[in-house]
């Protein structure tokens, strides 16, 4: 859900449109202004999410106190889980960069750079939120030639730089191609403002998976340290004298003994047939 606040500037509207273009089939852009403050009262957001069945939202607004404000947020069970406010310091729109763009609906590759995304808790949540926001639908297989779009986030000196590139797969000597990038999409310089993060237990609750999704353990399969697969085969008790093994020529008995054995061997054979 991409929506506007009570007051918006040209930058904000353009930014919202660009992000909508990035997320094209899976997003809805509202044209009307909504006079709400997500950080104070999130009931209208929840109402909208129930109506459209969306759990991610982007709210853009512009005040004197917080110019060019974007609020990224997500909901769990139609209640607000996380909300992070980012201010746009520098913005270059899609239309300003005049290169050919990727087709819409391509699953982008996401790259996060910077220590802050691992050390700082707020940045970690921001990372998780951005992954949730920008990754496309989960697919089981991807066309190799279709890996074109890249979103690169860098956390540096308290700012977050978002760049969008198109990757060109060049021939290299081996199977894996060499990458060359060219910038296409909108580029943002964000600064982290307010955050409203969910409490730890709510966050944990939101991560609970149903039992059915857990991978089912296959019985009778075990692995040892080297990765060899072991299993047990259950058999009935075998009559070892009747086993058909390889006949080693050297272990065979000599002539005289053989004749006697043959005779013995034949008699039980006949008996078997009869029964």
């Amino acid at each position, binding site marked *: 859900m991409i929506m506007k606040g009570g007051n918006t500037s040209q930058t904000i509207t353009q930014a919202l449109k660009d992000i909508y273009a990035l997320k094209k089939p899976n997003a809805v852009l509202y044209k009307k202004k909504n006079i709400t403050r997500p950080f104070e009262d999130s009931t209208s957001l929840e109402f909208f999410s129930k109506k459209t069945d969306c759990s991610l939202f982007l709210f853009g607004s512009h005040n004197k106190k917080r110019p060019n404000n974007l609020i990224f947020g997500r909901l769990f069970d139609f209640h607000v889980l996380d909300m992070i406010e980012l201010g746009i310091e520098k913005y270059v729109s899609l239309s300003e960069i005049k290169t050919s763009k990727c087709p819409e609906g391509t699953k*982008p590759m*996401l790259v996060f750079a*910077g220590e802050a995304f691992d050390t700082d808790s707020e940045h970690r949540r921001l990372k998780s939120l951005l992954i949730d926001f920008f990754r496309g639908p989960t697919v089981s297989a*991807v066309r190799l030639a279709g890996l074109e779009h890249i979103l*690169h986030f860098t956390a540096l000196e308290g700012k977050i730089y978002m760049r969008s590139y198109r990757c060109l797969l060049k021939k290299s*000597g*081996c199977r894996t191609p060499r990458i060359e990038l060219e910038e296409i999409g909108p580029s943002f310089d964000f600064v982290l403002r307010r955050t409203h993060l969910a409490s730890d237990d709510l966050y944990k609750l*939101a991560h609970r998976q149903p039992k059915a999704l857990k991978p089912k353990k296959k019985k009778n399969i075990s692995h040892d340290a080297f990765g060899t697969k072991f299993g047990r085969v259950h058999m009935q008790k075998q009559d070892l004298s009747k086993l058909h093994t390889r006949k080693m020529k050297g272990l065979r008995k000599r002539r005289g003994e053989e004749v006697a054995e043959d005779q013995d061997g034949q008699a039980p054979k006949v008996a078997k047939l009869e029964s």
Partner: protein
Amino acid sequence: PWWSLVVLHHINYDPEVVQRVFLYSHVGHDPLTSLTNMAACSVEELLAKAEQEEAAKLKSISVQKELDLEFDIGNLLACDRNRIESRDFRQQKKEDFLLSLARDNTQLLINEIWKQPTERVEEVIVVKLAAPTTPLPREKPPPKPRPPTKWEEFAKLKGIQKKKKTNLVWDETAKEWKRRWGYKRAKDDTKEWLIEVPESADPSEDQFAKRVKAKKERVAKNEFNRLKNIARAQKVKVPGMGLTPKAQQSKDELSRAVSVAKTSTASVGRFQDRLPKEKAPKNTGKRRKFEPLIGDFSSERQKQLELLKVMDSKRPKLDVTKAVNKQMREEDREEATAKHKKAAGKRGRRGNMSGKGRYRYRAEAEKMVVVHSYRPNWPDELELSPGDVILVLSKHEEERWFGRLQDGQRGYFPASCVMELSQVNLPAKALRRSLSVRSSACNNDSGVRGRHVNGHILQARWRGSRGGSGGAGLDGGQGESESPFLAQRPQIPLPQPVASQPQMHRSPGLLHRILSKCRKKTECQGATNGAFEGD
């Protein structure tokens, strides 16, 4: 030599040939030393060149990083944890720095993706992605597991474990493994060829048919229970077992069938006509709810202790006064309706009975003064002379009221002959309280003598409602009460109001009836009249 030139030509295009070059070099070394010495130098150069070029190629896709990146191929995600030197950042132009960083990271990600297994789908090479590994919160909470069924709950309560039974059972007679249940099962009693006739059974009975029939009944019952379970699970109301078609149906079953049929209309039976003598169904609605066998032990204990306490206490279990009054009220009510219908038929009046008229005992009796004289036309009417004070007891009909004169005579009179007093009556509550005290005292004395109970109450009420006579009158009334009543009965056998006559006949067995009715359910419909609570 000529072959070296050829090899050089190939090296630029096919790395596999480099390996062949090695082989050739080894082969070349042994037999032709002089030649190979010369060739060796150039071969080594070649090999060095080949290595360099390979490295260069791999260099094109290799990236040096301090820390390895973390990959989540399912999400096409890469995380770079290396420190970014702000110095480098500020030296270069921002965009170029970011571009180079992005390029490096993307190259590593692509390398990782290319390691995954690929397959060809409709002339397109597709790489299979693993499941995403980064934990992300769900949009909606996971669905709740289905609630346990009735059996599961019971089994849990009783501690019944699920035992896995074998599918096959050894059948001795057939000497083979047969199914435990189902087609051609091990113990099928309908398939036996020999049945011993039990001693108690009828010799002409067909035991085989009996078994088959029993089996059919079991199957039918099972099916019925299954359907009932489904109906219960889906909360669909079905009529009870009593409505299955039968040859002989008892009165109860028929009445229940009628009631079920009545309520099976769209308006749930609200506008269905009733037969003239049909009574309203008694047991519709909520039936008694019984506590479960193994429920809350503390509450059960509490209830039982209370019961014992009640049993122990000296209070009488049967509140005679209450019972008596209830019984009387019921009878009067029935009788009033019957009488009114008869009256309506007789006099051609509209059966428009006021609510007040139904109750014979009214606390607010009105004192009126007779203004016109009246000569009685009917045996139950009073003779009025102007100036008499008459106590109007009931206004059954609009024009014909029932009242009592000062000398004790009771009867009907036309309403036009009397006029209201301007006197203020005693407050109703005081009346009632005095009434109740009187009546309870009276009743306690004559608890057993049901015959006179009625009269006592009547008298007590009349006494109390007089009010003006004061305490003396009330006290004196006790002794008098019996006699006037008793006296009156022989005095005015006929002018008595029709209502009280049946009363006389009824009263001997009144207490018996009350005691027998004790156990029956009371039909206390509507709000209780406060006037009778004191009784």
